[in-house]
Every structure is written in structure tokens, then in C-alpha cells.
């Protein structure tokens, strides 16, 4: 573990990513300390440019809402949506992929056909349809992102399982008489965790982008302040109040960047291939 940490932090990008991500998480956690009022609250003159009013360093939007508050509370929502949807996608993907890869045969055939159904429709299109159908809300957005992003996880886990189940320690587990469910969860899964973690970290980043795209197209949750929502709302003000979209744009960029860097760091640290080459 300590080895792993050292390797991970030796990666400069990963260290930076972790630093930013920690900051983002802290901001999310202490949002209500930083700003005691709801981000929806109209607290000042509309359209104060940034850095002109010390009370509102990030400026205000057309309703006089503090952009800073929006950013801070948006962190919470964007992160939540990203993390929850990724968790759901990983859960579905891992279950499907594990069963499919472990049992093979017709079970595999059936599950893979099912997976294909979801892969055949382009992701964003599918997400749009789902959100529109189940009416835009944080639940439907999270659900839709999860639904469109699990198939790659399933495929990944499936292929991991297909190789791992041929590994001798799995065979050993069969030979000593363990049940399939135990073998799947205690023997194979822990060994497939690192690629899953890496994929999940990247999916989290994609989820933030997807949420913002949905918001941009008018399918965000109107009760929750998210970065995507802020950009979507600022779109019409792009010319007159560019700061309204620049701030959340930068926030998304930073968060996605950080998560990616962390993902890459994890990848390098967890990937024995690279380790062997002594990098």
C-alpha cells in the first residue's frame, strides 16, 4: 500500500490531480460554510462583473445570484451526480460482466446481446431520451448517465473475468469446493478491481461532462445548482456576461482534468506492465 502511494504520488500529474480533487471535495463538503445562503438567492445587483465587488468576487448573474455561491454549491451537485451515476454504472456493469464472463455459454450470449442493445444507440442520444422520458430531475439524470455508461464496464469486467477464471487460483478455488458466488466475489473480483477503478475514475469525468451537456440542452434539474446548469443558463449571456459561463467552464475543466490525472496516476500505479518497465 505504501509502495503504491509512493508510486502514485511520484506521478506529478497525479499529485496535482489529487490536490485539486481534494480541494474540490473540501469545497463541496464545506459549501454551506463558505456561503451561508442558497446559491439561488438573489443577493445583489444583477450582472456585477467579477473582481469589482469584493462581496461577490466571482460576479453575479442576471438575477443577482452570486456566481461564487453557484460554483461552490454546484461542486456538490456535479460531484454527486458524477459519483453516484458512476457508482451505479459500475455496479450494473460489474454484475453483468462478472456473471457473463464467469459463466460463459448462453448466459454470456444473452447478457452480451442485452449489453449491445444499450451500446447500439449513441450515448448522448440515449441519455437525452431517457431524461426527457422520465422528466429531468437529479434522479433521472443520474439514472440516464448510469444506463448509458455501464456497457463498457460490463465488457471490461467480462474480459477480465474470462482471463481470471482461467487463472490457476480460480481453478484452485473450484477444486477446494467453493461456491460460484464466493469465487466471483472473493476470488476473482478483488483481482479485477484496479482496471475497474481506473475506468470508474474516467467515467466520473465523463459524467460531469454529460451532465453539463444535458443541462446545456435544457434537460437539467432545475432545483439543483450544478456547473452544467450554470453554463447552460449562461449560454444566452455569453456575449454580455462572459464570466457567467467562464467560471463554471473552468470549474468543469479543472475537475475533469484532476479526475483524469488521478485516473492516469492510478493506471500507472496499478498497472504492473508499466511497473515492470521500471517507469
Amino acid at each position: 500500500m505504501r509502495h503504491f502511494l509512493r508510486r502514485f504520488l511520484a506521478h506529478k500529474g497525479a499529485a496535482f490531480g489529487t490536490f485539486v480533487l481534494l480541494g474540490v471535495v473540501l469545497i463541496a463538503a464545506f459549501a454551506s460554510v463558505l456561503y451561508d445562503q442558497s446559491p439561488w438567492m438573489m443577493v445583489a445587483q444583477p450582472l456585477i462583473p467579477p473582481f469589482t465587488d469584493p462581496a461577490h468576487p466571482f460576479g453575479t448573474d442576471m438575477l443577482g445570484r452570486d456566481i461564487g455561491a453557484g460554483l461552490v454549491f454546484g461542486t456538490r451537485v456535479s460531484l454527486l451526480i458524477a459519483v453516484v451515476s458512476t457508482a451505479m454504472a459500475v455496479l450494473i456493469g460489474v454484475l453483468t460482466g462478472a456473471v457473463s464472463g464467469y459463466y460463459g455459454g448462453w448466459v454470456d450470449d444473452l447478457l452480451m446481446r442485452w449489453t449491445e442493445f444499450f451500446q447500439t444507440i449513441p450515448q448522448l442520444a440515449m441519455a437525452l431520451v431517457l431524461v426527457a422520458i422520465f422528466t429531468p430531475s437529479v434522479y433521472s439524470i443520474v439514472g440516464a448517465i448510469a444506463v448509458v455508461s455501464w456497457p463498457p464496464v460490463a465488457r471490461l469486467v467480462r474480459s477480465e473475468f474470462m482471463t481470471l477464471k482461467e487463472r490457476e487460483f480460480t481453478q484452485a478455488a473450484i477444486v477446494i469446493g467453493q461456491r460460484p458466488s464466493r469465487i466471483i466475489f472473493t476470488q476473482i473480483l478483488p483481482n479485477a478491481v484496479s482496471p475497474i477503478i481506473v475506468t470508474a475514475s474516467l467515467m466520473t469525468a465523463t459524467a460531469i461532462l454529460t451532465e453539463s451537456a444535458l443541462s446545456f440542452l435544457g434537460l437539467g434539474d432545475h432545483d439543483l445548482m450544478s456547473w452544467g446548469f450554470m453554463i447552460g443558463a449562461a449560454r444566452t449571456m455569453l456575449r454580455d456576461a462572459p464570466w457567467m459561463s467562464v467560471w463554471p467552464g473552468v470549474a468543469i475543466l479543472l475537475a475533469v482534468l484532476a479526475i483524469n490525472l488521478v485516473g492516469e496516476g492510478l493506471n500507472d500505479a496499478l498497472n504492473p506492465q508499466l511497473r515492470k518497465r521500471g517507469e
Partner: protein
Amino acid sequence: MKLLYIVAARLGKAVTVVVGVVIINFLLIRLAPGDPASVMAGDAGASDTTYVEQLRHQFGLDKPLYVQLGIYLKGIAHLDLGYSYQQRVPVLSLILDRLPATLLLMGCAFVFSLAAGVLLGVFASSSHYARRKWIDSAVMGGALLIYATPQFWLALLAIIFFSLQLDWLPAFGMETVGAGYVGIQRVGDVALHLVLPTISLGCFFMAVYARLTRASMLDVLGMDFVRTARAKGTPPGQIIRRHVLRNALLPVVTLAGIQLGQLAGGAVLTETVFGWPGIGRLMFDALFHRDYQLLLGVFLVTSTMVVAFNLLTDLVCRLIDPRIQARS
């Protein structure tokens, strides 16, 4: 012969998948509140109930769901994708109207992202291999930055900068309307219009390809046969070109197949921002108007395309790597 069999078998599977997609979507869409009649009433800004009922009857929406599904599937079997409720035109002709624009943008963005991405990836990895790591870091850092930027944001900024401030490129649409260009002039005009959407659509995947190519190249560079090549006295440039690239390309091709599939559904965001008359926007509008048949038609066409691209990817992979043929 063998190839033919594979293609036939895959086609069989593909058809089931596409039919499955259609059925699932058919049922899914019906879960949505509202139907085409109510949306039309809403758009008209007025209505009375009998009018709405009458529309429903006219569209056949008053029949039981399974009957509607049956009718629809029977239509598909005869290549009849039905009628758009909103636009009162056969769905197929609407889609065919939009398809060329989608294919054009898709093709350009695909070629751009793949070519630029692979080049960047190869460049970065060979810099890394040649121990010029800072070049590698710079290229990859740039790629990561592009990857992390929301696409529509980039697109909006591009319009403002390149077409408004600099006035270099047209901001939207597919061609200059009413200019009456023909032949080469028209090609040039369309090409100019393509630049911004292609770049803003392709950028994301370019970054993805660059990263993937680089990682894959570095993986292959660590393999034993590279050492064999070095032991023969092969210079680094040749090692990269003759040995590494082809071996590293396989995951890139696989991903490219997936990207093509994603593009097949049109690019709603890009089409929205650049007013590109593609299939993504058609789908989006159909969705909001509950234009069921049109929406299903779009899905049918795009999923058919996705399946076709998957098949194509498979074949390309087989060409690149003959081992796959032997293995399956």
C-alpha cells in the same frame, strides 16, 4: 469463404439487435408523458379536446400498444418507417434528407480526430522513447486539456473568435444559402462551413486517440519483439514505423469503431450550436414533439449504422491482425 460466413453470422446477430433496439425504444418512448397530439395542441397555442382526440385517432394512437407495435414492425419489414406526425412526411424521406449532412460531418470529424490523434500520439510516444520527455508531457497535457473542456463551450468560443472577431469562417449552416454555387465552388463553400463543426466535434476524440495511441505505443515499445528488433540493429525510427505502429493500432481501431457509432447518432450539441442540418437535431426535435415514428426511425437508422460500423471495425481488425481470424 470464412469471411463470408463470419459476415453472415454477424449480420444475423445484428438484425436481432436492431429489432431489439426498436422494440425496447418503442416501449420506452411510450413511458414518456404526453403524445404528439398534445404537443401539437400545445404548439398551436390553443385546442379543444375533440380536436386532440381526432388527431390521436388519425395517428392510430388510440389502438392498444401491442397492436401499434405490430403495425410498426410490419411496416419496418417492408422498409416503411412510417409517417412523421408533425411534418406529415414519410419518416424515411426526412431521414434521408438529413443523412448526407450527418455523414459528411461525421466523416470529416472522424478522419480529423483519428489522423490528428494518432499523429500526436505517435509523436508523443516517440518523443518519450527518445527521452525527450518534456515534449511528450506538453503534447499530452494539451490533449488532456482539450479532453476536459466541455465541447459546447469550446464550440461557442470558436464561433465568437473565428467567425465573429476574425471573420475567417462561416459560423453555421452547411452552405451559403442562395449563393447559387455549383461544382467546385460549392465544394469549397461547404468545406469552409465544415471547418468549425469538424474541429469542435473532433477535438474531444482527437485527444482520446492521442492518449490511447501513446499508451498503446509505449506498451508495445516495452514488448520483447522490440528488443529483438533492436538486437538486429534496426534504428529507432524504423522500429516505430515497422514494428510498433501496426501492433499499437489495434486498440485505436477498436475505439475508432465505437466513435463512429457514437457519431452515427449525429452530434446534437454541435448541430445545435452550428445549425448543422444533421440527424441528431432531427432526433432531438422528434423527441420533444413526441414524434414517435420519426424518433424510432432515427434510432433504427442509427443503430443499423452502428451495427454496420462494428462489423466494419471487426473486419479492419482482422486485416490488421491476422491472429484474430485464427483465434475465433
